[in-house]
């Protein structure tokens, strides 16, 4: 990705800057040139489900160029998410961790497609189903397990929990519990990036249920009005908790809801479709064309959260069928085997290694220290004066809140 940034920068410098808020004009060849330079391998994957387009003359390419190394990396990354979610499920079911936990298994292709398409400097903000996106943005299972078990080594120092994973140095802005909140926040991130003339985008992720929140439309309008480099990524797993999308939405189609925004719908279970679509979206934004919506048609195997068995509003058959026909990890595995990127035995070794790594991360997390009591009062205000709060012993306790 460093190479692509350098290419973009060279192209930018050749163009005149119109005013501080204008985008940079791009030659349409730059996209093709860069993609050709980047493809390291000779494996071509056909994207099977065609993209649906809205307000776009042309869409992402229908085939993706990849290589052995990238394929194996994608496989490992998705498998790590899958294993981590299964471990998290066991932790909750055995009551070793309590609270709320929203598992990502089934949706791995969206997270890893995102990872392949964007850079560390691109800002990402997502909702509460954030474990997979956190890993995609450079987080580790150790940090996730630490956060789930409330340890100091957690990515939010044990104070956030499952829904609130953050990684500042990788521009991962979290982990947000309130539905619909990521859109206006993402618009703000995008404006900051544009204002600072960074060659980066903001990706604001929300679900199909959230797309009926008012603030999402406020954000879409603002982003479009000001040509913000914002990618609105909708993880459409077809259920807002227990409500199917056709019961919640007059029109259960999210990429084309707004007449003034371009949109793409991609197969969210195909990591290459997600990757190509997001690369296209990023180019679109960085060309100064404003925000773009991408809807990923995906599926979650678990229920909404640990309190939801996930079978009262859909059938086990449906879940099983999707696992068999569209599982994102199996899809990549088949390509790996077909292209000879690895043998069954090598993949089995990878499987074992990933499982072990995740288990090690969990054991390590369990041994990490818990936050001290004083942490209850820290990080509320940035203040250098003392702010009086009541302590646990009900006496007035002065605490430095910072």
């Amino acid at each position: 990705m460093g190479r692509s940034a350098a290419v973009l920068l060279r192209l930018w410098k050749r163009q005149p800057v119109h005013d501080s808020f204008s985008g940079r004009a791009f030659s349409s060849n730059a996209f093709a040139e860069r993609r050709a330079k980047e493809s390291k391998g000779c494996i071509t994957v056909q994207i099977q489900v065609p993209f649906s387009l809205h307000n776009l003359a042309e869409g992402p390419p229908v085939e993706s160029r990849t290589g052995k190394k990238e394929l194996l990396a994608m496989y490992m990354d998705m498998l790590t998410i899958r294993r981590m979610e299964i471990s998290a499920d066991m932790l909750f079911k055995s009551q070793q961790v309590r609270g709320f936990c929203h598992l990502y298994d089934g949706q791995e292709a969206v997270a890893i497609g995102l990872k392949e398409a964007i850079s560390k400097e691109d800002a990402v903000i997502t909702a509460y189903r954030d474990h997979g996106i956190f890993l995609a943005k450079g987080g580790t299972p150790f940090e996730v397990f630490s956060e789930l078990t409330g340890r100091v080594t957690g990515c939010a120092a044990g104070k956030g929990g499952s829904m609130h994973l953050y990684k500042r140095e990788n521009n991962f802005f979290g982990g947000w519990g309130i539905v619909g909140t990521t859109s206006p926040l993402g618009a703000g991130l995008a404006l900051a990036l544009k204002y600072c003339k960074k060659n980066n985008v903001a990706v604001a992720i929300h679900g199909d249920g959230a797309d009926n929140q008012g603030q999402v439309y406020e954000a879409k309008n603002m982003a479009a009005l000001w040509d913000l480099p914002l990618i609105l990524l909708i993880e459409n797993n077809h259920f807002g908790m227990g409500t199917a999308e056709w019961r919640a939405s007059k029109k259960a189609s999210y990429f084309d809801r707004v007449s003034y925004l371009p949109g793409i719908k991609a197969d969210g279970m195909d990591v290459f479709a997600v990757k190509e679509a997001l690369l296209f979206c990023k180019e679109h934004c960085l060309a100064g064309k404003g925000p773009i919506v991408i809807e990923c048609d995906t599926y979650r195997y678990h229920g909404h959260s640990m309190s939801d068995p996930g079978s009262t509003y859909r059938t086990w058959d449906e879940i099983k069928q999707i696992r068999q026909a569209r599982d994102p990890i199996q899809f990549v595995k088949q390509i790996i085997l077909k292209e000879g990127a690895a043998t069954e035995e090598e993949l089995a070794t990878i499987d074992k290694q990933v499982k072990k790594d995740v288990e090690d991360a969990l054991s390590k997390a369990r041994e990490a220290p818990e936050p001290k009591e004083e942490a209850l009062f820290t990080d509320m205000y940035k203040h250098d004066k003392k702010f009086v709060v009541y302590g646990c012993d009900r006496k007035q306790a002065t605490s430095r809140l910072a």
Partner: protein
Amino acid sequence: MPFAKHLCRTLKSAFCVGHGQRALTTQAGKAKRMNLVSAINSALQIVLESDPRSYVFGEDVSFGGVFRCTTGLADMFGKHRVFNTPLCEQGIVGFGIGLAAMGNTAIAEIQFADYIYPAFDQIVNEAAKFRYRSGNQFNCGGLTIRTPYGAVGHGGHYHSQSPEAFFCHVPGIKVVIPRGPSQAKGLLLSSVRDPNPVVFFEPKWLYRQAVEDVPEDDYAIPLSRAEVVQRGTDITVVGWGAQMAILDQACSEALQAGISCELIDLQTLIPWDKETVEASVKKTGRLLISHEAPITGGFGAEIAASIVERCFLHLEAPVSRVCGLDTPFPLVFEPHYMPTKNKILEAIKASVHF
């Protein structure tokens, strides 16, 4: 884990039947063992049966709701009267106000009180002020907003909040919080039939935990009337909702230490029953208020200020507040944050020995 070790809210049905409480009787006299969920379900059923222009709506209410309070209602009364809304709290409340403005009984559910804030504008600026600014031409008195609130042991930041204080600052609406199943049914029936918009907070912790005999028929517990749950002489203890169970435990232990507490359940926060609390404080000379919401700006502050204003010369000790801490509702630190029985007991003793 901290949760299991520190949090001990064992609830016996005794908490609902305190020493001085009048047992609830109705004309029919038949009672059934119900938990809070069934009691609310029963109340909603009665409303839907007796009022053909009543509607229950909200996220996921059709299949019964995430807490099962609306189980069976869609089957009984039809999907045109018990229906799901999309995920849009502001839309839900605005829509409810409009429905009520046309003379209907609109019972809107906000899935968790933590999510009520997008609807805050509609509640504060529209529902509360409609009658006033239209010179009584219009009103949305038929609107009742039901929402689960309060700590649940593991809810964290967004499944545990107690936002009642925000709404107590708004003239034009009423805020009602029951402490148990029989109060919930009676108060909900009163709230729905009250010709003013009501925000009805249901203590989610008690949905399954609190079980008692609840009259099966239609009955009402009046709004704006505090209930003296337990008579005493040494200190007045005021609370509402799930906190009442904790206060009851603290008062029982205080009694063992020789302190006689008068325990009052406020039930309606605005407009609140000042007279009952005043009369009690004039008798005991001491007041302790306890709520889960953070202490600063919590509703306890209003009660404290009012009582000091009106009962200053009767007070033997400063008004005491044992509340949640001034932090966001924490995740792992919940046991430290909560106003627990021991904190309350210590405060009772400190007040009595002042």
